[in-house]
């Protein structure tokens, strides 16, 4: 498995809220070696915090409890079903002067033999992340005029990054495991937290 940044925070995704306009933010591919089996993907989120700054009113920081990224298996692309993608996004509001998001996840690659009764086995994984990807609303508080987002993702557009083969000496090793969906932390009213940005920089 390798992965590469195709487009970072897709500008279309920032201005339109629908998959038909989205260019993948990141793409994961499978080994090109011939295989009779089938590949599948599982993504676990380790950290996901969206932060909304409203000028002098402070910052609203909304963390997420780690877990499965919503779906099992992670949907892959026809016709070969050997690659997939993700495009994390954060909404824009007129009354936000800045929005940012920190996201850390691991995409697992599994393979299933064609032998009847076979189950998926993990063969590799790829950790990926972006930290405080952000954009500033220059039109705040009366309009939306967004600066080019700062993506802060490791790698550059199109960079393939080798996956970590699943071996006992390396983490993560073995099957992806989770206790539940990655979901919003039960923080009442998603409270103002002006320290969040500083904490994330450490």
């Amino acid at each position: 498995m390798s992965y590469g940044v195709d487009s970072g925070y897709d500008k279309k995704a920032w201005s339109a809220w629908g998959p038909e306009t989205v260019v993948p933010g990141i793409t994961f591919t499978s080994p090109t070696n011939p295989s009779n089996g089938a590949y599948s993907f599982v993504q676990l989120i380790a950290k996901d915090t969206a932060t909304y700054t409203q000028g002098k009113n402070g910052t609203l920081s909304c963390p997420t409890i780690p877990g499965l990224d919503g779906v099992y298996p992670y949907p892959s692309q026809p016709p070969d079903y050997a690659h997939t993608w993700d495009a994390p996004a954060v909404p824009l509001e007129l009354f936000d002067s800045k929005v940012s998001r920190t996201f850390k996840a691991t995409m697992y690659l599994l393979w299933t033999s064609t032998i009847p009764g076979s189950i998926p086995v993990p063969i590799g994984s790829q950790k990926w992340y972006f930290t405080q990807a952000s954009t500033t609303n220059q039109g705040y508080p009366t309009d939306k005029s967004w600066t080019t987002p700062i993506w802060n993702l490791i790698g550059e557009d199109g960079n393939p990054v080798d996956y970590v083969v699943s071996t006992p000496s390396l983490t993560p090793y073995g099957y992806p495991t989770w206790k539940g969906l990655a979901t919003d932390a039960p923080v009442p009213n998603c409270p103002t937290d002006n320290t969040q940005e500083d904490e994330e920089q450490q």
Partner: protein
Amino acid sequence: MMNLAKVLAFALLAPVVFSNVLIAQTIPDNPKLSLTIKALNSEVAQGSEFGIAITITNTSEESITLDFGHYGGMPRGYDFDIRDEQGKPVARYGKRYRQLPNGNTLQYPSELPGSFRDGGIQPGKSIEQGAMLSEVYQFDHPGKYTIQASRKVPGVSVVYSNTITITVLPAESKSPEDQPPAQK
């Protein structure tokens, strides 16, 4: 007499035999997909987080590509019909929804962070999605609630899931799943 016995046996066994068929519902003019939902916990304490699992299965012989976007614990593309014991629809405002003095509701943020994504389902294969209903719907009193999911697939009709029932217990109680194991 033998025929009557067969009829009776069929009538008695039919609900059992066909129950699995009823669980994964499809509609006649759209046999491409089926939806099955199940509760992660059948009993939950009022105010606690809970969700359901939605299994979407491609029952056709062709690959189908769908939106699998996920935002704030909820999958895109689904509608949920949730009703309390009186059949009253459950209000669609969870912890991020605010009720304004004029009765309207406001969600902040208006859209939740998540991921754009789509993907295919191969013939005969399934993908399971999670939906944290407590993020969006207001289960504000104890009792039984019925839940049914539906999904409109572009170009075809709406697909409906089975209907499940969950019990919301008073806030101070704990669901059986939350109870510690008994001491020996």
